[in-house]
């Protein structure tokens, strides 16, 4: 059983043979900030992801075919009632690409979030795919609130 788990973990770290998923992680140990980078090759676009894990905040960058920063959004829970608020920091338009991703990450993790995203406008499917991949990685990093509390 232990060898199977080890093989699974190793396969996640290796570059995928079919070219779809290419995790390129760079961990910094001993308490420093951790930066995770990975790429997802979809049919017609390549999505790049970069996650910087601070202890009280998450910074995430999503790149669509390019390495431009794109629009920058900040999202956090705000008073009253801990509703989630989102604001555009750079970019300045009413374009929603990225802001909804930021908002949903705050809902799921409870942390403050800064998201940079250069996904083009009017691409809801691409935005949804990018958000799903990002959420999967955040879940694997242990960022989601536990839904159930187990009592022993």
């Amino acid at each position, binding site marked *: 059983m232990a060898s199977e788990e080890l093989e699974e973990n190793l396969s996640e770290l290796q*570059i995928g043979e079919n070219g779809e998923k*290419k995790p*390129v992680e*760079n*961990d*910094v140990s*001993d*308490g*420093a*900030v*951790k*930066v995770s*980078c*990975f*790429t997802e090759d979809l049919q017609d676009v390549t999505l*790049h992801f*970069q996650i*910087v894990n*601070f*202890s*009280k*905040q998450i*910074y995430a*960058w999503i*790149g669509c075919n*390019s*390495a*431009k*920063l794109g629009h*920058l959004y*900040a999202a956090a829970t705000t008073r009253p009632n801990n509703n989630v608020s989102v*604001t555009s*920091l*750079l970019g300045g338009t009413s374009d929603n690409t990225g802001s909804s991703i930021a908002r949903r990450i705050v809902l799921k993790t409870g942390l*403050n979030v*800064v998201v940079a995203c250069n996904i083009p406008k009017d691409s809801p499917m691409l935005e949804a795919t990018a958000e799903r991949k990002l959420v999967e990685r955040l879940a694997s990093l242990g960022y989601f609130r536990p839904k159930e509390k187990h009592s022993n």
Partner: protein
Amino acid sequence: MESSSNNSLPTQFPVSHKSFSLNIKGNKTDIVICKYDDCFMVMATQIGCMGTILHARKEESVSTDPTFHVAVIFGKRDEPFLVACARQLIEHISSYGSTRPLVLSLGLKDHSPGSMKEIIYAVIENRLW
């Protein structure tokens, strides 16, 4: 000071970065420097979050001397040394021939000039421009 970068990995991620830690006046400071296609991002934190975010850019001017525009886009707007830090770094970027803007985030416990200088030195030592 421990540092890491992704410049030697077999599959090149399009955004290169450096991440390291150092001690500034007793405060552990984590610094991440990223190079995007159209800007540089520098994050320095002592408090576990990004803190104040500033945007600095070089402005096109007719005269030979470059001018710069620095603005706080998130966080403390009454700390002049944060703006001065961004101004120093964008001027350094410009002196190395790059016209890319800088997004700088500073989450610091101590806003003294001495701390700012040490952060600037550390960033310049590990620059990606």
